[in-house]
């Protein structure tokens, strides 16, 4: 199971830096980052890191609200229309999601698309069922 680390963050100066300081001290690498916020002054930071379990533990120990959430990471090309093609297949698989983000691996080459499937238990099976390439943990975490 591939996981991202999600952290509750108030939209205040220095709060994101507190997270990165904890990860820095633990020598955890950030592979991808996605920050969203609500009109109410808080938001959730989603991180793909080299060691999500350790990151989760360290952040919680530091007093922050962090949680592990299952994601599926899909491979796509870094070119016009690639996401459209990918989404056609995701639609075919019937997987609806409310949170996703992307990451370029090498410019003009390939890219990754992370989909939060925590609340969709058979998403992985459905996505591979329509022929999508799911990236394994080692490649996602870069270890």
């Amino acid at each position, binding site marked *: 199971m591939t996981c991202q680390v999600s952290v509750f963050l108030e939209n205040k100066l220095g709060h994101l830096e507190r997270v990165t300081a904890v990860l820095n001290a633990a020598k955890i690498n950030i592979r991808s980052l996605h920050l969203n916020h609500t009109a*109410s002054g*808080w938001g959730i930071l989603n991180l793909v890191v080299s060691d999500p379990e350790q990151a989760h533990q360290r952040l919680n120990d530091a*007093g922050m609200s962090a949680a*592990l959430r299952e994601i599926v990471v899909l491979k796509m090309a870094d070119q016009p229309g690639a996401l459209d093609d990918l989404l056609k297949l995701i639609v075919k698989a019937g997987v609806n999601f409310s949170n996703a983000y992307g990451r370029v691996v090498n410019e003009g080459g390939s890219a990754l698309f992370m989909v939060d499937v925590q609340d969709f238990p058979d998403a992985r099976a459905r996505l591979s069922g329509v022929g999508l390439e799911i990236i394994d943990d080692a490649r996602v975490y870069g270890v």
Partner: protein
Amino acid sequence: MYWEKELEILDRANLEKLQIERLMTTLRVASNASHYGKSPEIKRFLSSGMSSIEQIRDLPFTTKEDLRGDFPWGFLAADKRDVVRLHSSSGTTGNPTVVYHNRHDLDSWANLMARSLYAAGVRDTDVFQNICGYGLFTGGLGFQYGVEKLGCLSIPAGAGNSPRQIKLMRDFGTTVIHAIPSYLGRLYDVFVEEGLDPRKDTKLHTFVIGAEPHTEEHRRRIEEMFGVKAYNSFGLSEMNGPGVAFECTEQNGLHIWEDAFIVEIIDPKTLQPVADGEIGELVMTTLDRQAMPVIRYRTRDLTRFLDGECQCGRTHRRLDRISGRSDDMFIIKGCNVFPMQIEGVLMKLPEVGDDYRITLDTIEDQDQMIIEVEVKKESFRGDITLLDRLQRHITHLIRDEVLVSPHIKLVEPGSIPKAEGKAVRVFDLRNKV
């Protein structure tokens, strides 16, 4: 000039005689209630009588906790079939405080209300718009019955919807309005937004403002904005509601109606009377209520008697503005809120940590109650929808509890300083002018 001349200018000696007479009747009625029926002091007074009003100090106090503790019927002194209305405090946690009225009580209350408004210059030729919530809150029906008794054309407009309020004022030529002071800044803004000047485009001449503390400067600003005279009104539901104390046209202190209440001011620590003119806690006894007399009620409001006689000729003493509370209750948008009510709601939610902070602030001319709530680490699932739902859930629960919609701010665990000892959880940053 007077609604009930004889009573309003009754000399102090005769006023005191009347008080003793009415207190004895009140004690007799009160002893029918299970709470007061047990009191040996009341029994003693009923058998031996009373020679001076100061002897009231031998009677025990009644507190809000007593009212709650003997909920729902412990203070009812009349046959239930004679009771025609109840008013109740907000709240769903714990017992609310309830006050019962029979027909006589409602009529007596309406009369005090009419007397108060008359003292502020309101007459039967006026058009009175009551911008105030109706229902269990006493400001709606309390004013309504008084205004009708006085004979004005009443407009029971209720709270909110400023454009409609303004339309009512213009359609029917409203001359007097009753509202909470913190609403009037907002109302003025809506006048301006609609390209209107209340000084020219309405017939308003008198405002009655109350239900929340405000400064003299705030009053003067309201008078200036609207081109009216604004009079301070004081009341509390345990003593009926509005119509307890009211400013006359001198605008120099609030006459408290001493034929209807015995008024004491005590030191909240020693429980002894303070020296004349010193600030202390207001303690009140009803003198003309049959369904539910209340003896020596500790209002928790801090105020003082003003010295000297009023130019208006009324002999009923004047109270200064309420300067604070001897407990932690605060008033926002006209609603009385105890921090414990909010704590009660929050602590029932497993997602919420132990620390919270209440900030009262003025944002764009509107008073707001901001509550910072910690999201517990253990319950965080990284899901924005769940948190958003939690935020709305807390908002609804608190609004149901205290009748004011709070602004809930979810904050990171540990970001609110840990409370040590008796925590100060309420920060009041509201504009005081």
